[in-house]
């Protein structure tokens, strides 16, 4: 797969990666390595210049981008919440887009809010600006899983948090992961985060996958000096 922005070095070149159902894969690399670009190719916020992206076995290029995105959960840094909507409205966005009834989406919003440890009574009617960074991030995760997608994309989901909130959310993530059994593709520049959260890690450098493997494989048999140095940070 290949993706370039204007002239110069393509953001991604010769990129190939598979995520199995129920598996969490981390895209790990320094900034500018193309990991966010790769993520956005999956839900067609960007489209590939060459090669193909398959989601649930279908080529995304042949699908309606809007309908595709409703079937893929998407979590971004600082939550990306709509500031004029309440927590409940934010969480119920995709169910609303899918045409669920008001009662059904409300019930589901409450259900996922409880899953991310936000008591409904206290948080459902708050607006994003009345939340802490960690709470916003939890709402972002709740929103992504509200319509029960088979695949969740996370772009530096815990990047904007302080170390304590970050660790707490990482721990919770491992719980959700076990409960939900979804395929998760997570972008991070933090080696420890990638190793803690992911079943497999893809190390990226300058738009190419340098190595794919379990955290252990990458630690014990790094493919080259770049990976060794990056993994030992």
């Amino acid at each position: 797969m290949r993706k370039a922005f204007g002239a110069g070095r393509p953001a991604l070149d010769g990129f190939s990666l598979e995520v199995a159902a129920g598996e969490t894969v981390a895209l790990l690399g320094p900034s500018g390595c193309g990991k966010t670009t790769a993520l956005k190719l999956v839900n067609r916020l960007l489209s590939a210049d060459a090669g193909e992206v398959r989601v649930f076995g279908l080529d995304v290029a042949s699908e309606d981008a809007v309908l595709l995105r409703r079937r893929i959960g998407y979590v971004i840094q600082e939550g990306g919440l709509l500031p004029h909507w309440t927590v409940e409205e934010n969480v119920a966005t995709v169910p609303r887009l899918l045409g669920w009834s008001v009662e059904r989406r409300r019930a589901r919003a409450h259900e996922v809010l409880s899953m991310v440890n936000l008591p409904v009574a206290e948080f459902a009617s708050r607006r994003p600006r009345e939340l802490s960074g960690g709470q916003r991030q939890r709402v972002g995760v709740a929103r992504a899983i509200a319509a029960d997608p088979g695949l969740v994309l996370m772009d530096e989901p815990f990047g904007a948090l302080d170390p304590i909130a970050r660790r707490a959310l990482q721990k919770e993530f491992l719980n959700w992961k076990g409960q939900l059994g979804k395929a998760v593709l997570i972008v991070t520049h933090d080696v420890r985060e990638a190793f803690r959260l992911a079943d497999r890690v893809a190390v990226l450098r300058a738009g190419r996958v340098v190595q794919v493997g379990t955290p252990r494989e990458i630690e014990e048999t790094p493919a080259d000096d770049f990976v060794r140095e990056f993994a030992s940070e």
Partner: protein
Amino acid sequence: MRELGTYFWERRSEILSLTGEHLVLVLVAIVLAAAVGVPLGVLLTRTPRLARPVLGLAGVVQTVPSLALFGFLIPLPLLGGIGPRTAIVALVVYALLPILRNTHAGIRSVDPAISEAADGLGMTARQRLWWVEIPLSLPVVLGGIRIATVVCIGIATIAAAVGAGGLGVLIYRGIATVDNRLILAGALPAACLAVGADAILGAVERRWSGVSSEAAR
């Protein structure tokens, strides 16, 4: 001062009815200008190539002195002639720029990360516009409407020159008879209208920006 008060009181029915005419002129013009300017402003954010020339043209039109514009309009068929229609056309022209510019700027000021989140969730372009971009830019759009209204209340005094009525009638009559009291009888209510409109629309704007205050960040 007291004498002026008595003078106004004696002419209260005329002042009131002319104030009413004045308000109708401005209201009709603002409703029409918003009906054209807001959709056009949104459209310009979708076609950036057109934004600069259109906003530029609207800016140039704005610089035509209002008395001259009223004059130019009189001989035109359909739009012109003597009476309120000509005045409303001229007011729409002046109201259009602030509404257009603020709508364009307001939509563009929406945080790109928020717009991308809306896309990533699976909103169509239309859903993103109505659910996200318009609500978040509403305070700025309302600001444009407020500025246009205040400007139009002032310019509408010139409407009397083309026989459209309004508070300008008293001002022109005062100038013709060199009667300052008569000029004030037109000018003071017009100023009050402008201040009142500014305050009311400003309050509406603040109410909305409270809801979407993070949009500006």
